[in-house]
């Protein structure tokens, strides 16, 4: 992996940041049988695309993110199956040594609690330098230090020499997240996996971090898998939205389509649940009744059936596959619902039926 100069980088075609996840299933064995935490998840990320993986806690989105780079291997109770292709290579069968080179190199990752994701006893500059050294950086401590300072500047940190000498507990959460992004950038990644990067941060800092991610995508042609439960974040950044519920993908759609015409009852329910400034006052917030079932309690068939107002007989026995939603929505709109055609064709009446039960 030669290091491209800045000129070479802008002139050359964008690096292959294309990711394809097919049939990812993560399970664990319990005395009562095998439980699937993530079931048959498939989605693609094109080069330079921002895909938001959306879902609530327990949907399996974090696990999916970690499985892509093989971090699930380090948890002995979990088992992962399926394929993950990245930049033409099959990651799922790569030996650990090779995969380690991809991790932090072509695929960078940042996490939800930035302060906790940094080693508390080592200076920030050294932690960045560690990533630089690991991924083909210059030999020699001084050049690595200079590169680390460069990276800090690229992520918008002022006075980088000072920051590099500091420890994680001496800086704010927002700055920690920037440092983590700098670390992720050290390997010149073509894909960035961001697992709830703003959840632990204040709203104003949130905006800054999201802007930074967006800017980096523009400048570097990097694709991004942004895992979040915040619809606002998805609306702001995503090119495409992948919705997960209880371990399965229920909808895949371009962002505009998703927010205007969601094809799955769950997505529609989520839309309804977002409080709106222009809604009439003194109205109860519509919520989706019920809770996400535990892995052990998932029924056969569609995972959403227990809370779905549009449930049919067939939903209890057959899990709906991800199928194209129809010509009107375009080829990239996929929905896993037996009644999606009705939903999309129907009008407000069908929408109102969903989520109005509260």
């Amino acid at each position, binding site marked *: 992996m030669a290091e491209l100069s800045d000129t070479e980088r802008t002139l050359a075609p964008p690096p292959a940041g294309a990711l394809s996840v097919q049939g990812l299933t993560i399970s664990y064995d319990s005395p009562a049988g095998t439980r699937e935490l993530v079931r048959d998840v498939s989605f693609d990320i094109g080069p330079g695309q921002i895909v938001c993986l959306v879902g609530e806690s327990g949907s399996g989105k974090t696990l999916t993110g970690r499985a892509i780079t093989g971090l699930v291997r380090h948890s*002995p109770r979990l*088992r*992962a199956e399926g394929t993950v292709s990245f930049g033409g290579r099959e990651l799922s069968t790569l030996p650990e040594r090779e995969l380690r080179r991809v991790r932090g190199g072509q695929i960078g990752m940042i996490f939800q609690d930035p302060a906790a994701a940094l080693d508390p006893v080592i200076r920030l500059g050294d932690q960045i330098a560690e990533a630089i050294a690991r991924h083909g950086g210059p030999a020699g401590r001084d050049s690595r230090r200079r590169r680390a300072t460069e990276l800090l500047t690229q992520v918008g940190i002022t006075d980088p020499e000072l920051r590099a000498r500091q420890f994680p507990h001496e800086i704010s959460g927002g700055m920690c997240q920037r440092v983590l992004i700098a670390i992720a950038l050290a390997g010149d990644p073509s894909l960035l996996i961001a697992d709830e990067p703003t959840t632990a941060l204040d709203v104003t800092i949130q905006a800054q971090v999201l802007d930074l991610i967006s800017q980096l995508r523009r400048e570097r042609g990097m694709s991004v898998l942004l895992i979040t439960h915040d619809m606002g974040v998805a609306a702001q950044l995503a090119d495409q939205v992948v919705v997960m519920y209880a371990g399965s993908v229920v909808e895949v759609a371009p962002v505009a389509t998703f927010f205007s015409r969601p094809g799955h009852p769950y997505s529609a329910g989520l839309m309804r649940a977002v409080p709106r400034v222009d809604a009439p006052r003194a109205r109860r917030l519509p919520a989706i009744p019920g809770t996400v079932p535990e892995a052990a309690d998932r029924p056969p068939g569609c995972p959403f059936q227990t809370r779905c107002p549009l449930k049919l007989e067939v939903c209890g026995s057959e899990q709906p596959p991800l199928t194209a939603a129809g010509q009107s929505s375009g080829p990239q709109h996929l929905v896993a619902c037996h009644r999606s055609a009705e939903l999309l064709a129907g009008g407000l009446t069908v929408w109102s039926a969903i989520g109005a039960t509260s």
Partner: protein
Amino acid sequence: MDGMDVRVPADQVAATPEAGADMRVLPLILGRWGPLGRPARGPARRQIRQASRVRTRTGLIIAVAYLVLLVGWAIIPGVFAGTDPTAVNPLAALAGPSVHNFFGTDQYGRSIYDELVYGARPALEVGVGSTLLGGAAGSLIGIAGGYLGGWFDLVVMRLIDMLLALPGLLLALIFIAALPRTLSNEIFAIAIASVPVFARVLRGQAVQVRSRRFVDAATVSGLRRRTIVVRHVIPNCVAPATELATVYVGVAIVIAASLSFLGLGPSEVVPDWGTLIQNGQGYIDHDWWISVFPGVIVTLAVISLSVLGDRLRGALEPVRG
């Protein structure tokens, strides 16, 4: 938070000794994995878990049985051994372990086994006596300091620091130096050595308890300080205090044996475990049993008390919410 082990049910997590820790690291370091995951090892792991649970219960039973035996030796030595352990019998001198003398004989022909049995009482008297005395005093001081805070706590802390600057044996040694060599004085000396240990641990516990919300709730609801201490603080301190006390009995027995070994033990006590070990020192090359068996008896007592202490603490700990 969505983590790696989230949604793994509680029974799975609780059963393994350290949650998520059952992982072979060396293969990881060597980078020897292929597909995205590895086959889980359900059945094998379950067996290991069950085996260790059985093993620890057996451990407790053995520990308690041993301690009961020692108590038996202390209370009714005549049942376990002959009548006069100090009887000299030159004909049987320096004989190895045998059916007649389980642990062999010393240079005077005395049975080591008999001497050990009769030595149990002074050992336990010192061990239990000094622990009760010092433990009670230290705990009270510690809880008072921890809960009351303020200048009282400061004074207590300074005092504890000073006493702790003389590690273990040394503090007892000063008192041994100053006092006549009797068993009660030895108990007193070792008790003093235990006071700072208990005081520090209990103070820490009391401070922790004081900062818990239910204490605030009790104070706000108008309960008198004394009531709060008795009804809330003390019960929460019982578990660590009990474990510490049980373990400290072992420590005290070792200190007492070491003192006798050094020739600084109570002069009136014969036979004495520490003196036995000291006695056998010169014979260690050929007649090792004279020193080794008493040492083993003491060690087993220490181990049993540790095991018991650990279990007691587990049993006494208030259920965590």
